């Protein structure tokens, strides 16, 4: 089981802030692909630049997912 969170424009596009997935693929990149295949809004949201984090650390597509992980998806940051 993993927790997935979406932020900013991505959350608005998807209409969801967080969800729990009972089963997950082995890598972060595979998870992103699986989410993007959910439908038009998802494909569109994941087509833009999307940053990814696992357990509050920036992570790349090859990152291996483990039970209990928190995954975050979000657009490029614009703070400061």
């Amino acid at each position, binding site marked *: 089981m993993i927790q997935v969170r979406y932020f900013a424009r991505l959350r608005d596009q998807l209409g969801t802030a967080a969800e729990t997935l009972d089963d997950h693929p082995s890598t972060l990149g595979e998870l992103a692909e699986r989410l993007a295949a959910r439908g038009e809004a998802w494909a569109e949201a994941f087509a833009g630049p999307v940053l990814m984090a696992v357990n509050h650390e920036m992570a790349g597509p090859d990152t291996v997912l483990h039970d209990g992980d928190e995954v975050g998806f979000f*657009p490029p940051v*614009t703070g*400061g």
Partner: protein
Amino acid sequence: MKVHIAVQEAPFDAAAEQARLCAGDPNIGAVASFVGLVRGHNRVEGQEAEVSTLTLEHYPGMTEKALGRIVDAAAERWPLQGVTVIHRVGELRLGEPIVLVLAASAHRQAAFEACQFIMDILKTEAPFWKKERLPDGSERWVDARESDGEAAARWLR
């Protein structure tokens, strides 16, 4: 090194923060400070547009961790006595302060450079997002700027 990192809705008092950072440390000879404000206009789809309010969102937990890592990276590069980073979130009006960075060192060069480094890296790595509200009531997420990526990248060369 004295470090104070906060993500908060409340305003900050830059003078009080500077006094707190420097209190009791006779080795500090220089403090560089940066304050970012809500600007009244921004480029929207290539045209100047007025901005009435900004809403800032962050990733609770990750943002604080990312700021801590940026401060640690600064401390590895410059001899710092203390750093304060305060970043506001929530709805902010035109002209309100958004972010405060204080870098304290024995001498000015380290303080100046560390302050700029922290801001440049914060702009590209700390998970904050700005949403603008225009005077007609419409809202839009602010796009990341290429120039911010370039400013951060020059420290890595």
